[in-house]
């Protein structure tokens, strides 16, 4: 598969959402459910992505060092650490554990 296809199609689509906002009348936002759905949608998708990226491998559930990384991320976020610290520490902990055979 040429990866330019999903890259460019998704880019066109997300840009269309941004542009549409400047061309439609803003009484759209008056609909009470509209803002609520717009707020919850990213939360649902990102939570789904966490599940898949932590436990999934194709169509199987695989328990490996990613769980340690995600757990480290949760602990650091509870301590209000910045994004870059969270991501790098998660990677380092996972890598060190793998090196010493604590997990796969």
């Amino acid at each position, binding site marked *: 598969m040429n990866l330019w296809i999903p890259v460019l199609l998704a*880019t066109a689509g997300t840009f269309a959402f941004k*542009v549409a906002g400047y061309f439609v009348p803003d009484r759209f936002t008056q609909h009470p459910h509209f803002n609520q759905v717009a707020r919850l949608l*990213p939360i649902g998708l990102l939570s789904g992505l966490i*599940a898949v990226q932590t436990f*999934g491998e194709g169509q199987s559930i695989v328990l490996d060092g990613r769980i340690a990384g995600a757990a480290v991320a949760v602990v650091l976020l509870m301590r209000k650490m910045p994004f870059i610290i969270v991501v790098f520490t998660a990677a380092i902990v996972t890598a060190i554990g793998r090196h010493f055979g604590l997990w796969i």
Partner: protein
Amino acid sequence: MPASKNAILRDALGIGIGVASYGVSFGALGVTSGLDVWQTQALSALMFTGASQFALVGVLGAGGTAVSAIAAALLLGFRNFPYALRMSSLVRPHGLTKFLAAHVTIDESTAMGLAHENGPDQEVGGRFAFWATGASVFVFWNLATLIGAVAASGAGDPKVFGLDAAIAAGFVALVWPQFQGPLERKTGALAFLVALTAISFVRPGLPILLAGAVALVIGLATKPGAAS
């Protein structure tokens, strides 16, 4: 006290430098997910909405189809539509400037625009904050992406460096600040469980869309403004 343009500019630069850390992560993850440096950079320059970019490379890297990767990116990018609606009445761009404003309509520029909209200098401050933040984030985000992508393209097996765990951690960090109330936390927990359960039963990519469907149903079924 009116927020001077200098103060706004300082905040905008600070936000830009802050998102640069996400940008480095995105550049590295894009390349380790199978995209080349150009494709990764094209996403930051042209798509320019972080969560959608992470989702696209995340689904592709996990073996999902192009269709489910695109769908995940679009669903995450949907929130820019209400942002743009809101910014349209603040920024009031004309002609081609509308497309430029649309391109830099993201979480950060919208938040800054709203924060300065009701200040003493009113719309001028809001508009200035929107443009300054959009421009600052665009520059830093793209530079950071390039650094991350180039650095990771020589890194070898991503698992040795724990980069697969970094993807999971990155999504946790993206959603964390959004868990502001009980409804948000309930939505996140339910979406997580549905996606986890679905992994073994449906094709890669679809569990994420099912998680999005959970949020859609909760959003439509819950009375807006009701404490839950």
